[in-house]
């Protein structure tokens, strides 16, 4: 989200853990607002504070946490929740793919540690640094990742504690935080594509809208999400020749 936030910074800033923490600061408000909302939704889905903390620490993915809470509240089966989470979080594969190369030289364990904490936001900050031709190292990346991770867990816990006193988070519009985040992420995705591909992407968005409405007549919406994504991504490959 804050790809442009650190553009004003001079190149050649030290690649320290501390600099990683500093470069994370612009993203923290995003983590806090979504994290608190995720905690509130968790509490509204009858998760206790321990479960909300575990979810934040082990899954560590905003969109997925909202969906997991919604599916738990709806009494969805284990397999459906796990598979939906897998599909929702599959995008991390792309994010990791894009930023993995500069870390090749470090140990496997270090790579796994960095990969474990990749998010949309830390990816954004890291890829911005790479694009500007700055060197990127393990200490800086860990500073960035760990700051975001701790902020996320704390925010979810705060939301979880407040959630106890909020009977209906919908009144405050907090349930819309997820949709708003997806709208912003969609816009940020469209930002990164080449101009001549814009028509293709806009047509794919239209296909998803159409297939979602059609599929929702026959299957639950969380199944429709998976099927329409798989179908339209395949259309994307076929049309993008």
């Amino acid at each position, binding site marked *: 989200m804050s790809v442009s936030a650190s553009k004003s910074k001079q190149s050649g800033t030290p690649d320290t853990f501390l600099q990683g923490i500093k470069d994370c600061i612009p993203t923290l408000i995003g983590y806090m607002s979504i994290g608190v909302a995720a905690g509130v939704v968790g509490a509204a889905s009858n998760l206790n504070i321990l*479960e909300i903390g575990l979810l934040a620490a082990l899954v560590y993915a905003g969109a997925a946490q909202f969906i997991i809470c919604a599916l738990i509240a709806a009494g969805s089966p284990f397999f459906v929740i796990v598979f939906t*989470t897998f599909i929702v979080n599959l*995008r991390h594969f792309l994010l990791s793919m894009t930023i993995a190369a500069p870390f090749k030289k470090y140990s496997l364990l270090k*790579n796994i540690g960095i990969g474990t904490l990749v998010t949309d936001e830390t990816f954004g900050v890291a890829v911005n640094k790479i694009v500007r031709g700055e060197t990127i190292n393990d200490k800086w990346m860990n500073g960035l990742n760990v700051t975001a991770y701790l902020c996320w867990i704390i925010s979810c816990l705060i939301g979880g504690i407040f959630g106890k006193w909020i009977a209906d988070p919908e009144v405050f519009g907090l349930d819309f935080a997820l949709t708003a985040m997806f*709208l912003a992420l969609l816009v940020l*995705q469209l930002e990164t594509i080449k101009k001549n591909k814009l028509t293709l992407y806009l047509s794919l968005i239209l296909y998803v809208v159409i297939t979602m409405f059609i599929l929702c007549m026959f299957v639950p919406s969380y199944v429709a999400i998976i099927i329409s994504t798989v179908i339209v991504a395949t259309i994307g*490959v076929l049309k993008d020749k």
Partner: protein
Amino acid sequence: MSVNLSIFLIIAGCAIVTLIPRILPFIMVRSIDLPEVVTKWLSFIPICIFTALIIDSLIVEGGSVPAIDWRVLLAIMPTLLIALWTKSLSITVIIGIISMASIRFFL
């Protein structure tokens, strides 16, 4: 307070399937290259899934034909404009929450 076993299993399962796509590229990039067609297919996933999830929040299930939650549709409009204008996740989220809260409060 304790953790419900079935909830714990769900969280653990979700943690594992979330971890794999995150760390796999960091392991793979050391040895193999993905086929181009797979990389291309994956490149369309984010836009498709974000759109699908937005539509999901817009659809009211229950009837024989899915209906539109017009409050969500109404909140999407200012939120989308702010997203296009600011390109900021945090500002978009805050404006989105305010928009939705206002719509529910006034309408």
